[in-house]
């Protein structure tokens, strides 16, 4: 078998292993998907009326706010899901089985690829559920097929990029507890961006951060694609951030994975 076939086969084996692990330990998956759903419901029904009024749209109410909110919640789904990635990678690293994998003639990257693909699929499921709930509570979009495809494409790229970053964070973590803490920052990023309220409604310094941090251009692009708002240079920025995060995460993860075990 060629190296590539072997790599694909080993990655598939690792993916199957990760899927099985989630099936055995569903609490985390459920929790990670529940978080954005709860946020969605809370912001829509608790804060929605008030925040919607603040937006000052045509009808300026809960309905408008739900539309505004959904792209931010979708991104939160991505960042919550990769928190799970970091945790399961860290768990793996502390279980001793990775040392066994390293002494076997298997594709070096298969362990990580298995995690990345598995997490990515999990993220997609999460996004699908969140979008489903959004429609149920009255989310309306005027996106056509091409815009949907572009949205899903961008979300996929961004999710994969963040997943690699999370894998690196999981590898870097000294313990499983740290691994669950570090990506929490990422879960908060949609708040400190244009996910819940427009960036320009914040104080100057924060508004500057909110406008330029990686989540905002992605949120703005998704919002533009789904709601027809102005995208501007956000699409380019979103792709640039995705590339930077993805490459950084990928090489950081590989570097850490090659590091000998510390025991």
């Amino acid at each position, binding site marked *: *078998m060629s190296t590539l076939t*072997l790599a694909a*086969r*080993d990655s598939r*084996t690792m993916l*199957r*292993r990760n899927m*099985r*692990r989630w099936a*055995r*330990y569903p609490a985390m998956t459920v929790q990670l998907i529940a978080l954005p759903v709860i946020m969605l419901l809370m912001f829509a029904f608790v804060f929605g009326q008030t925040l919607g009024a603040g937006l000052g749209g045509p009808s300026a109410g809960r309905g408008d706010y739900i539309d505004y909110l959904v792209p931010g919640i979708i991104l939160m789904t991505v960042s919550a899901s990769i928190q799970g990635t970091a945790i399961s990678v860290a768990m793996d690293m502390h*279980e*001793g*089985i990775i*040392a*066994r*994998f*390293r*002494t*076997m*003639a*298997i594709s070096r990257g298969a362990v990580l690829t298995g995690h990345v693909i598995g997490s990515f699929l999990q993220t997609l499921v999460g996004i699908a559920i969140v979008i489903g709930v959004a429609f149920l509570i009255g989310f309306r979009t005027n996106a056509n097929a091409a815009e949907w495809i572009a949205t899903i494409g961008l979300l996929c790229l961004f999710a994969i990029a963040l997943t690699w970053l999370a894998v690196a964070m999981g590898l870097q973590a000294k313990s499983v507890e740290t691994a669950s803490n570090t990506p929490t920052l990422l879960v908060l990023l949609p708040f400190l961006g244009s996910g819940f309220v427009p960036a320009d409604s914040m104080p100057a310094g924060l508004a500057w951060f909110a406008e330029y941090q990686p989540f905002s251009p992605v949120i703005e692009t998704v919002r533009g694609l789904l709601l027809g708002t102005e995208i501007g240079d956000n699409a380019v920025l979103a792709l640039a951030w995705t590339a930077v995060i993805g490459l950084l995460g990928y090489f950081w993860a590989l570097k850490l994975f090659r590091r*000998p*075990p510390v*025991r």
Partner: protein
Amino acid sequence: MTPDQPTAIAATGLRKSYGEQTVLDGIDITVPEGTVFALLGPNGAGKTTAVQILSTLIEADGGTVRVAGHDLATDADGIRGAIGVTGQFSAVDNLLTGEENLLLMADLNHLPRAEGRRRTAELLERFDLVDAAEKNPMTYSGGMRRKLDLAMTLVGDPKVIFLDEPTTGLDPRTRRIMWDAIRGLVAGGVTIFLTTQYLEEADELADRIALLDHGHIVAEGTSAELKRLIPGGHIRLEFADPDELDQAARTFAGSTRDDAALALQVPSDGDVNSLRAVLDHLDVASIEVTNLTVHTPDLDDVFLALTGRPTEVRSSAGAGHQSAETTDTAADSTTKETVR
């Protein structure tokens, strides 16, 4: 072992340091195919580091390694394809069942599905894990986990197996089961590289033993060769009062007394004749002995003699003093005396 036997593991000048601390200071290891080699030493001697280097887990700072005909520097994957490793820390997936763990190994060894199932069933049977096959390893006892761990190593049918302290922390019964499994592997032509801090284990299993201390191999040979390196054994006599001890000390020239324990060590090679001679002398002088132990040299003594300090580790037998009733000189579990 014959000179023309192919070599399974050959390492020369192996070095490894972590910062200032030198863990391995140029060690040479040669293990012929189909034999058991034991690397024996106290905690922190560098045993695990040696295993990690030979099993491709970490890189050495210097030295050459060939395992199963593959060079570590140029063909680490070749080595990985030929070896199996069971480490000190169990390397099982705690969220998969025992059976799934074995099937995972079958997949990663690229076995055809049917073959993987067959080997899994066979190994579950062999290690008495059939009833636990559907259960999660977190519910296993320490011994069961270790057995599953070894079974996982065996799925790929490795030619060379590294066992890093395979029985540390196991109860005596499970230890015996592991030993039998290891002997079975050797009978099947597998080469075993074993690290242990149990002298008895090395004595029981290994064809050749190397003593590792502070990153140096301080002695190497068969168990018998190593024991020959140090002075012979002794018979230890214990007395009820100091007067008896005084009298005995006068009777046995060249003996060493231990006033605190009211004991006397009489040099002896431990055979029946010398034991009879000692008993005769005691009889003639009418000296009462409260306890008598025959001490043949063991690896503990070798370690003490070569490193100048006790091993800190004791024989896994954990035996106390042998009583006078069992003065069988052939007894393999002699009493340990790491006094001084």
